[in-house]
């Protein structure tokens, strides 16, 4: 396998795909966003614990709250996908199991993120009289 080819010759053609650093940067940028968004979410949760349905819906109807909640969901599910991907790649060696988990991770994070954002938008765009 190794033969007489030099390490450089072996690496050529299967090396950098020119976007490997995208994961690293996205993980950090979402992390910085989440520092702020999570602190806001914790403070908001203190108020929401006491709220009933009408109170919670009214809170999410505020454009600022809805925007920050949607951004929180996007940043969190994005960050989660990157983090879980690293864990799967670290601990699962078998290609089939690894591939399956990586795909599942994509489905869970995209699916969960979509449900969360669309639910937030539905409440945010509803009228205050709506009691479906």
């Amino acid at each position, binding site marked *: 396998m190794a033969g007489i080819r030099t390490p450089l010759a072996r690496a050529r053609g299967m090396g950098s795909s020119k976007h490997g650093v995208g994961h690293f940067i996205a993980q950090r940028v979402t992390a910085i966003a989440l520092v702020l968004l999570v602190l806001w979410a914790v403070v908001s949760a203190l108020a929401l614990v006491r709220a009933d349905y009408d109170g919670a819906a009214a809170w999410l109807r505020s454009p600022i709250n809805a925007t920050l909640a949607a951004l929180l*969901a996007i940043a969190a599910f994005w960050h*989660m996908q990157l983090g*879980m991907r690293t*864990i799967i790649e670290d601990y699962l060696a078998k290609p089939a199991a690894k591939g399956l988990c990586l795909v599942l991770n994509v489905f869970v994070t995209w699916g969960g993120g979509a449900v969360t954002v669309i639910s937030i938008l*539905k409440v945010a765009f509803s009228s205050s009289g709506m009691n*479906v």
Partner: protein
Amino acid sequence: MADAPPGLRPRPISPQVQLNGGIWRWHLTMAASILHRVTGVGLYLGALVLMVWALCLASGQGAYAAFAAFAGSLIGKTGFFVLTLCIFYHLANGLRHLAWDAGYGFKPQTATQTASLAIGFAIVATLALWGLLAVTGAL
């Protein structure tokens, strides 16, 4: 592998298999590192709780009441308490990671200090938050 020919010293073993008497010992920074992953997985589940909350709120009063009943149960409260610990630990240790990315905090003493700081912050902030909830009668 371990059976070295007579006269030769045993071959070296990888550090991670030298369980006793090896060069590795448990250290706070190792605990801080694995805790970052563990709490990250916890927050993965926590984000799905956020999803269920938003879904119930968008689905109407009945669904929201069901979510509130679960959240107020003993299992719900315990889950949210653990989730709070995960949030504050991953937040504090995430700041450590960002500092490292910027090139700061690599000295062993500093790394150990910031590890205990992150763990301490998670415990204190969680107890403070839940204490506040208890004092204000929100629990």
